[in-house]
């Protein structure tokens, strides 16, 4: 495969994945609204299209056509750049996620279902998450509004505190897999179905639990969503944003949710492998062999998102000091204990 | 013309250029340390100097295929992180005492 062909195929992959990602973000919003509605014993959006399925399109049009207000006293360069940083980082991190089986390859070993197969894939995602903090920190400060500043400072402090627990909870999985490459981590979970996934057979349930909670805090979602709670801070760091810039923050939050869900499925739930493992033999049709792993991956990410929205609709919000106390005094030591326990288990095996 | 550009694309980068970049960044850090009048910006110039040194370490690690060079960079990063944390806490304490961050007004021990 020549460089030009490689470049064009990669461009196609990037376009397809970005479009699918953006559509998923829009429909995750709909999923959340309908699920939270059902939890609260009401329907959720149901008038636009069948079962409200056209709601995201209409919402997108509304946000696009709203008046774009820029207050006069904001610090313009940072005000304009923060939504770009937030959304950019949220979309970039999907580049290293393998969403299908690498057994179906193109000429020259070209991966169809992963944009970039790098050896430090997990660290890449952690790094992009760290950079994403700037979108929030700078937006609050540049808005020249005390509520925005409070919201963004609290949110950034929360993000960097829980990043620690997030990273540490993943070390157990990396120890078991012996690699930071996301594809190799999934492949190390074997092909024996449900029992060989890191969550069950790998005994990483404590790590999964920690990762779940750190992920809720990282994406500023309930029960850790104090920085953007409307009753507390008049929408926090995105108070002064309207129309497309607000839409970018909104999309960034849901894109982060999806990315975090993808990482959880890759590391704990076995990625693209089916839960039945080798009990059900794969049919010989190459199309089914290519599409079935993608279906399993999407299904697992969907269950993760369902869990996200379920928790949002059920649990009350943490107070800020409770939140920070929880992250530093409970999650981090627990994650370290998990690392020690996993290392001891692996050393004596 | 086409093959000239293609040859240009295939060229390797001599490590001298990396070392020169590192030296220039270090000297820019020194200039920043000397001419900036805000305490935080002076501290940032120090971080720039540390990064420049890291770059030359990695260059030499590449030259001698020595992993120890990269590990030393790792240690420099850790020390810089610790130093940044303590240094910024000191800056906050100075700001609490003097209510200013201008270097020219914090140059005496006496208030």
């Amino acid at each position, binding site marked *: 495969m020549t460089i030009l062909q490689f470049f064009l195929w990669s461009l196609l992959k990037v376009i397809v994945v970005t479009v699918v990602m953006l559509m998923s973000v829009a429909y995750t919003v709909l999923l959340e609204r309908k699920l939270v509605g059902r939890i609260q014993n009401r329907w959720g959006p149901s008038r636009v299209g069948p079962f409200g399925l056209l709601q995201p399109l209409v919402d997108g049009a509304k946000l696009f056509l709203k008046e774009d207000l820029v207050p006069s006293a904001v610090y313009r360069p940072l005000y304009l750049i923060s939504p770009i940083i937030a959304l950019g980082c949220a979309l970039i991190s999907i580049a290293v996620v393998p969403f299908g089986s690498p057994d179906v390859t193109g000429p020259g070993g070209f991966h169809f279902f992963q944009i970039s197969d790098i050896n430090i894939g997990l660290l890449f995602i952690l790094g992009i998450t760290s950079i994403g903090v700037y979108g929030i920190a700078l937006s609050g400060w540049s808005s020249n509004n005390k509520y925005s500043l409070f919201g963004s400072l609290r949110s950034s402090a929360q993000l960097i505190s829980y990043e620690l627990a997030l990273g540490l909870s993943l070390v157990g999985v990396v120890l078991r897999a012996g690699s930071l490459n996301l594809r190799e981590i999934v492949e190390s979970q074997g092909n024996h179905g449900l029992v060989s996934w890191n969550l069950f057979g790998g005994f990483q349930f404590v790590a999964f639990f920690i990762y779940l909670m750190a992920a809720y805090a990282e994406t500023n979602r309930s029960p850790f969503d104090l920085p953007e709670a409307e009753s507390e801070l008049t929408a926090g760091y995105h108070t002064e944003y309207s129309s497309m810039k607000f839409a970018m923050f909104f999309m960034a939050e849901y894109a982060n949710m999806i990315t975090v869900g993808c990482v959880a499925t890759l590391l704990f739930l076995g990625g693209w492998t089916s839960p039945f493992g080798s009990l059900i033999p794969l049919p010989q049709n190459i199309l089914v062999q290519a599409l079935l792993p993608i279906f399993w991956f999407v299904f697992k990410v969907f269950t993760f998102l369902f869990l996200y929205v379920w928790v949002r609709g059920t649990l009350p919000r943490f107070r800020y000091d409770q939140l920070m106390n929880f992250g530093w005094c409970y999650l981090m030591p627990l994650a370290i204990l998990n690392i020690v326990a996993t290392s001891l288990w692996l050393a004596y095996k | 013309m086409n093959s000239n550009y293609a040859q240009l694309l295939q060229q390797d980068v001599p490590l001298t250029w990396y070392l020169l970049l590192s030296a220039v960044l270090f000297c820019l850090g020194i200039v920043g340390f000397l001419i*900036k*009048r805000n305490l935080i910006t002076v501290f940032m110039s120090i971080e720039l100097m540390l990064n420049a040194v890291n770059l030359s370490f*990695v260059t030499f690690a590449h030259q001698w295929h020595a992993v120890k060079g990269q590990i030393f960079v790792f240690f420099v990063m850790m*020390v810089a992180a610790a130093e*940044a944390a303590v240094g910024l806490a000191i800056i906050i304490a100075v700001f609490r005492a003097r209510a200013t961050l201008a*270097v020219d007004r914090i140059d005496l021990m006496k208030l």
Partner: protein
Amino acid sequence: MHLILFIVFAGFCLAGAVNLLVQTHPINSALSLIVVMTSLAVLYLLLGAEFLAAAQVIVYAGAIMVLFTFVVMLLNAGREERTLGSRAALVVGFPAVVALLAVAATVILHTQGLGTAAMRDGITSTQELSAVLFTKLLLPFEVTSVLILIAILGSVALARSGEGERTPGE
């Protein structure tokens, strides 16, 4: 390919460093420094140090610079002023630094035996790095972790003592 990537990202490094010096507001200097650090991460990747590139982004650009940005936002540091001190420093410091740069550049340009860097050179994997870090250099690793612990305790103590002074009658 390596050449183009080097020139682009070295350009970003130099532009960010010069912008750090030129800008008057500390938040702009902080953002320029973030650009420098991310470009340096790419340069480390070009030199085959993939773990260091990731560590540079996670630790430096993603944690240390966030700390700097916090302090700038919290202390509400305003724009700098041109004072007598800064003019004196420019007059004296600039030639001295140019002299230092000239000496360093002469030494570097006269060094023999430096190789080249190319895309085909191998990447140092994380396994190789950890094999040396956790066996031969274990003691410095442990000492560094104690150092970080001391730094945490120190900064918490410093941040706390400011508030402790203000509460009367304690």
